[in-house]
């Protein structure tokens, strides 16, 4: 990527929480931008985020990356809980929410206040979709994640399950237990379960899109082609459009 000399100073965003939010935060002081990349495992999220970081930093913007299961507070315990599959639904759901809230308060909000561009590798939507697919109450989830700040842009990398399988095997030797929804008992055949689960997840994302307004991005194209689309849209966000 060619270094650029002209630096675009971002315009302020109108900020709101989805629900009750976090007590005692001055939203007007959040000068940075929050960009979310959503999509299944193998949809190319991390590749896209890496390219965006290159581009943004080259353009003079400071960036911070967050993602699921990265909090200081509970990430280790959450990892272990998943491995052992010992927590029941509501418990696991609240554990994830704790992980999210810890990062929201300790990284996302302070970084936005300091004028950083925050790149989130997944946000509340994946967490909500996973729970919805598992039959949890949508009103309850909406209230729970009402703590979340509305991002400036949300991109959903749309890749059909048939391709996700191929990409997973190109990278790993096995399908992931959770990404295959094996806890749901959809099928004892892991391949079948994966296909069913990812189809259900995709359908749920479509439903969430109605409430949460994210941009569907065709994730089957080349990484560069996808990134060009993301850059264009993020430039518009930075320009306050």
């Amino acid at each position: 990527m060619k270094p650029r000399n002209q630096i675009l100073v971002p315009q302020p965003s109108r900020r709101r929480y989805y629900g009750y939010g976090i007590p005692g935060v001055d939203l007007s002081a959040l000068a940075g931008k929050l960009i979310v990349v959503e999509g299944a495992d193998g949809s190319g999220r991390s590749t896209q985020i890496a390219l965006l970081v290159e581009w943004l930093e080259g353009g003079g913007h400071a960036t911070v990356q967050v993602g699921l299961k990265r909090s200081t507070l509970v990430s280790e315990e959450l990892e272990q809980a998943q491995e052992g599959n010992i927590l029941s639904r509501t418990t696991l759901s609240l554990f994830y929410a704790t992980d999210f809230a810890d990062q929201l308060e300790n990284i996302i909000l302070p970084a936005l206040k300091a004028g950083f561009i925050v790149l989130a590798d997944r946000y509340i939507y994946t967490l909500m979709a996973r729970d919805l697919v598992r039959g949890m109450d949508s009103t309850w989830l909406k209230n729970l994640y009402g703590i979340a700040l509305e991002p400036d842009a949300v991109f959903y990398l749309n890749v059909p399950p048939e391709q996700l399988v191929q990409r997973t095997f190109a990278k790993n030797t096995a399908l992931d237990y959770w990404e295959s929804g094996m806890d749901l008992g959809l099928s004892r055949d892991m391949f079948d379960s994966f296909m069913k689960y990812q189809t259900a997840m995709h359908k749920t994302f479509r439903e969430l899109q109605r409430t949460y307004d994210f941009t569907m991005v065709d994730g089957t194209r080349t990484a560069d082609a996808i990134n060009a689309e993301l850059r264009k849209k993020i430039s518009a966000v930075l320009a306050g459009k």
Partner: protein
Amino acid sequence: MKTFAELNFPGRLIAVEGLDGSGKSTQIYLLKRWLEQQELKVYFSEWNSSELVKAATSKGKKRELLTPTTFSLIHATDFADRYERHLVPLLRAGYIVLCDRYIFTAFARDVVRGCPPEWVRGLYNFAALPDMTFFFKADLEVSLQRILEGRPQLKYFEAGMDLRLSADPYESFRIFQGRMLEQYLAMSAEFRFVVMDANQLVEKQQGIVRELVAQRVKLDDFRRANHAPAPPVSKELPKRFKREEPEETVA
């Protein structure tokens, strides 16, 4: 929100709530003994959290990592764990389950910490309401005296130090407990608390508790199966007389 009875659970849940030092643990222990001696299926929920949730909570507390929101969420996680893994199965199996504190502690505590009341209520609405809730209402000074005399070392979050009410842990604890009491009293009617005068003698209070439980719960429905062994009598000291290694103290 509905009670377990309203949801047609065969079991019944009885909860006690109140400030630290209100004597609620003594009362629920004596209620348990009385029910056990009648050979009823009774279970005292000791709030044994799973190791993982416990590890995360204690890390958060020790390192003072918690904000009001994460404090609330991690306690809700812990509660959900106990609720789904422990309480619901027992209530499905037709036990009388006794709980020393229930969701109302979280309602009071998290709201005092500044969380929006509706958000906290929503967080816990997966849980059914107790079939009876006794609220032990002691004078604030009486509760404070009991706690402060017996255990001079106060824990950071217990004293509400995170709220920056006062630099002095004792003063902070007083203000915090006072606010907790206000919250409890404000929800007392809504959740039909049985308000107990906790300034009375232990025996007098227990007499009232037993009478009310016998009136409201059909105890005959909870007989233990023949030859089920009676639970052993514990040699453990009541919590308030224990001298434990202080941890996470600020005083």
